[in-house]
């Protein structure tokens, strides 16, 4: 079927509609020093309706970044600290018996917000994680006999700490797969660290101002959905995903022993969505291979299972993804 999208017109539309990106970046920049990659990933998740899992050692401004993003958007924000004694009802809500009215009344949990910060998600047992992940998948929760729609936009930003694994409940692969992106937060550079230090010793606590409304995000998402994705890019995405499943067929037989399972179809879907959002952030109405490469590691790293051999040889999923990207031909 012939595509009828006018790319020039779309480019113009995107240029005008994406002006808020600069505003958000400016507001985030007031609070977060450095961590441009993390902020960009948060924006991608926000624009493509995908949940994000942030992983990094403590003190890298993961929680602060999410907090600031919620602050920059005039949206309802809930922070849930995941602890071992947390119950699903603490998250989604429960039915409470009112003695006055002599009936059960619904008390909605903190999940009824636009932005959910699931802090240290791996500290709670599987039943709580499942309750959250069900809400992420369905965009609704069931309390008693009634299902309640979650507000739009609904974005879960979960954090987990790669160290201190004692007493944690690692997310099962099937549940990790529901996160669109898994972002690894690294240390700031020396210059950035100096700026952080200066800001903190001044005792200044900069705060973000709300520059957007949730409706603006919903509108922006519609524009992102219009970003043109050529069939060549679709082929490129599927080639990357298939190379993770059947490395032998892509001349990557050296990786075959390191991959226990390849990326799921969600990887292809999320890669296309994330590439569109990335193109939008770059003010483009069409996706180019650069966009796919930019988001590929964040989309695939938690979807490629490694074997014991890979772990023994200190080969990470990112090494595998980089090898795939360096081998799969660019259209």
């Amino acid at each position, binding site marked *: 079927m012939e595509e009828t999208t006018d790319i020039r017109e779309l480019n113009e539309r995107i240029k005008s509609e994406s002006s808020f990106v600069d505003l958000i970046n400016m507001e985030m920049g007031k609070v977060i020093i450095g961590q441009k990659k993390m902020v960009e990933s948060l924006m991608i998740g926000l624009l493509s309706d995908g949940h994000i899992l942030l992983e990094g050692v403590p003190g890298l401004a993961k929680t602060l970044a999410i907090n600031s993003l919620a602050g920059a958007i005039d949206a309802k924000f809930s922070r849930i600290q995941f602890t071992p004694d947390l119950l699903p009802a603490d998250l989604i809500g429960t039915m409470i018996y009112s003695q006055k009215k002599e009936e059960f009344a619904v008390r909605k949990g903190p999940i009824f917000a636009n932005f959910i910060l699931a802090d240290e998600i791996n500290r709670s047992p599987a039943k709580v994680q499942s309750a959250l992940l069900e809400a992420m998948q369905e965009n609704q929760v069931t309390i008693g006999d009634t299902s309640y729609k979650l507000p739009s936009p609904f974005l879960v930003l979960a954090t987990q700490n790669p160290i201190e694994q004692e007493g944690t409940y690692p997310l099962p692969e099937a549940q990790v797969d529901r996160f669109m992106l898994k972002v690894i937060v690294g240390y700031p550079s020396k210059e950035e660290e100096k700026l952080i230090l200066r800001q903190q010793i001044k005792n200044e606590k900069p705060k973000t101002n709300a520059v957007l409304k949730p409706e603006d995000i919903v509108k922006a998402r519609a524009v992102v959905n219009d970003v043109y994705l050529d069939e060549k890019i679709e082929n490129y995405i599927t080639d990357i995903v298939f190379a993770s499943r059947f490395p032998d067929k892509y001349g990557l037989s050296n990786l075959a022993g390191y991959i226990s399972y390849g990326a799921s179809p969600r990887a292809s879907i999320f890669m296309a969505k994330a590439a569109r959002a990335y193109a939008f952030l770059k003010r483009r109405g*069409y996706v180019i*291979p650069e966009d796919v490469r930019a988001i590929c590691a964040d989309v695939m790293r938690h979807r490629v299972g490694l074997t014991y051999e890979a772990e023994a040889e200190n080969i990470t999923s990112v090494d595998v993804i980089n090898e795939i990207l360096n081998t799969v031909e*660019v259209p």
Partner: protein
Amino acid sequence: MKIAKIYLGIIFILACISLEAQEVRIKASIDTNRILIGDQTNLNFELIQPKSKTVIWPIFTDTISSHIEIVQKGKLDTVDLGSGKISIRAKYLITSFDSGSFTIPAMEFIYDLKSDSTFSKSATNSLLLNVNTLAVDTTKAFKDIKGIKGEPYTIWEILRIVLPIILILGLIGFGIYAYRRYKANKPIFNMFTKPLPSADVEAISSLNELKDKNLWQNNAIKSYYSELTNIMRRYIERRYDFPAQEMVSSEIIGSLSNEDLSKDLVEKTEEILQTSDLVKFAKYEPLGNVNDAAIKWAYNFVNSTKEITQDKEAEK
């Protein structure tokens, strides 16, 4: 009286024939009855018997007597002599490690064994074997026994040692080669493939083919730019030895900037690659002169970046 004589004559002839038919004769002989100690000689038996008779040969173990040993037992050789007779011959290689004169006793061959355990027998003649020692010159000093003298090596014996070594070394070498090719992600068996033409010759030939296809003139602009960028990516990869086919446009420009290329050429390349991306991924349709300029740039890029050594070779 005359008739009686004739009858008697016939009876005598028939009796003679009958006796001849029943006769079993055995003869033993020796090739030489004088040997040096440890030397070997053949003991031969020849048995002539009627075809119908069963003759039981004496059983030989590994010795004939306490001084004579059998080295090798020969096979029986049967010859039909006609008239219902056969001759069976056998050879036994014998030796002796004692000096002296030794008798090979008469050997008995049994036949006509009946159910009441009676039988007929025929015996060989006994033989004498003289075993001599070497004469020792006692006037000269005694010398120690010489060691075993080795035989010279034959080619086959040498090959039997050398070939497995060559085979093992070859297998180890092939294993290392195959492992390296596997690690480098290259096919293992490509040593007999035809050598590729040089990067610029291949690129110019592909560009000529692309030009002849008239793709953009026939509205196949996307295919035109796809093929053009594929040709140039392959050329850049072979010429500058970086994986341009697996790189995105910005990465190619970044890598080309590090090569010894003019700024203008890099900028023009960037412009063409950006146009190609627009055509391939954003349904952009450039004007005819832009399409024509793209292939001209490709020719120019190849001609101005081809390796100088190739020119020199061409001049020679």
